[in-house]
């Protein structure tokens, strides 16, 4: 018998993986073949050597599992209805906050209202939102300034606060004068401003200059609010550039400014 053909059976034999019949057959052969007996011993010793080489895991090994999101809301297990209701409420608050927040963030000074609208709105003078006419806001500004020293968020009050200091022309704006002078509502560019001259555009430029100060000081003071430092620096540079142009009172910056404000909001985390 060819001993090489027997080796595979010897290998299985030391693993205890052969049938009783095969075992009898192999043992008969082993009794008569010294070479195969040595082979069996070699395989057994080799098997022992491999086992010795097994690497032990470090004693300080600890299984680290990822934190699954579902664990966070595990307190709602079995109360998914409650969880859904809370989630819906939070979403609603955020949504409503987003809308009203945008309104609040809209600079009041740019919401110069046409006559017809202003008259209707005049009846709601008490409302502290953008539906108040500019003169109402301006009139309240002094009192608000006394009460509010600094505002962390950009609000109509914060914007109004800076108005009286800039121009006496703004303080005395009447509904009629408004329609004659600046009409910057919703980013609409008044002719005079577009033309880059005139007394009306001068005040509009002053307003924009102040608003940029407001954005830099109150809306963009913290770089961590932005996803990208480069974007932050770029936007700030652009703001300062517009401010410089406004001071020079030479070019149309209203549309550019509105676009930049939208860009800033998008760049925030």
């Amino acid at each position: 018998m060819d001993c090489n053909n027997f080796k595979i059976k010897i290998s299985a034999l030391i693993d205890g993986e052969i049938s009783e019949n095969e075992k009898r057959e192999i043992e008969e052969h082993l009794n008569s073949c010294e070479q195969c007996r040595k082979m069996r011993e070699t395989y057994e010793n080799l098997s022992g050597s491999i086992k010795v080489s097994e690497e032990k895991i470090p004693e300080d090994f600890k299984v680290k599992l990822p934190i699954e999101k579902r664990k966070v809301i595990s307190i709602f297990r079995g109360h998914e209805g409650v969880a859904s209701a809370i989630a819906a409420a939070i979403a609603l608050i955020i949504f409503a906050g987003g809308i009203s927040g945008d309104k609040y963030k809209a600079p009041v000074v740019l919401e110069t209202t046409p006559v017809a609208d202003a008259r209707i709105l005049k009846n709601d003078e008490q409302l502290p939102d953008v539906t108040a006419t500019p003169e109402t806001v301006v009139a309240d500004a002094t009192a608000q300034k006394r009460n509010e020293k600094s505002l962390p968020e950009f609000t109509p009050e914060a914007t109004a606060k800076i108005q009286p200091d800039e121009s006496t022309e703004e303080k005395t704006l009447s509904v009629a004068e408004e329609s004659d002078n600046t009409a910057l509502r919703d980013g609409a560019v008044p002719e005079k401003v577009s033309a880059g001259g005139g007394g009306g555009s001068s005040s509009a430029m002053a307003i924009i200059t102040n608003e940029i100060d407001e954005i830099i000081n109150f809306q963009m003071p913290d770089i961590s609010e932005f996803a990208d430092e480069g974007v932050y620096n770029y936007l700030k540079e652009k703001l300062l550039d517009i401010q410089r142009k406004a001071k020079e009172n030479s070019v149309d910056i209203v549309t550019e400014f509105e676009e930049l404000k939208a860009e800033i909001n998008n760049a925030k985390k």
Partner: protein
Amino acid sequence: MLYYCRKYCIIIIAFTKGGCILDEFVLKIKKGDKHAFEKLCNDYQQKIYSLAFGLCGNREDALDITQEVFVKIYRGISNFNGDSSLSTWIYRIAKNASYDFLRKSKRNMEEEIPENFHSDEVLTPEEAVLNSEKIEFIRHCIEQIPVKYKTPLLLREYQNLQYSEIAEILDISEGTVKSRIFRAREYLLKIISENRDIL
């Protein structure tokens, strides 16, 4: 009463899914029992690590693979339906994770040992005894066995698994397991005999 209803429902579901009845331990893990999962980690971390180490030959990589395997077990246990034993399922994950690592490391996964390969230089039984002082030498020799043959050999020697279990893990026949383990041993004997002088 409710407990029994639930238990039998799970058994019925297991059967309808074509799987086997899951034992209490597996059900506990599936339900998210922290202690049961800890026990599973304690039972298998050494086994997974030694297999990964044997296949990739590096401590750091073997530890990373072991971590990865437990994350896969944790995430995949909900899909384990008892088609195979838990042990087979875990070894299969460990083998696949190790193979993925080897593929990423551009190791040759297809290397073959010829069908009629026999070591010409037969070691004496004494020469095949490599004690703990020669661990690095034997590891170095094992590392040179082609992956395809090394895997069943390690599952046999390190994990003490039967040929039928190895066949299930590697999805090959028992006859193939028997043949690959034999060829891996022959190849290892050849490598050891060729490197005897550096012992």
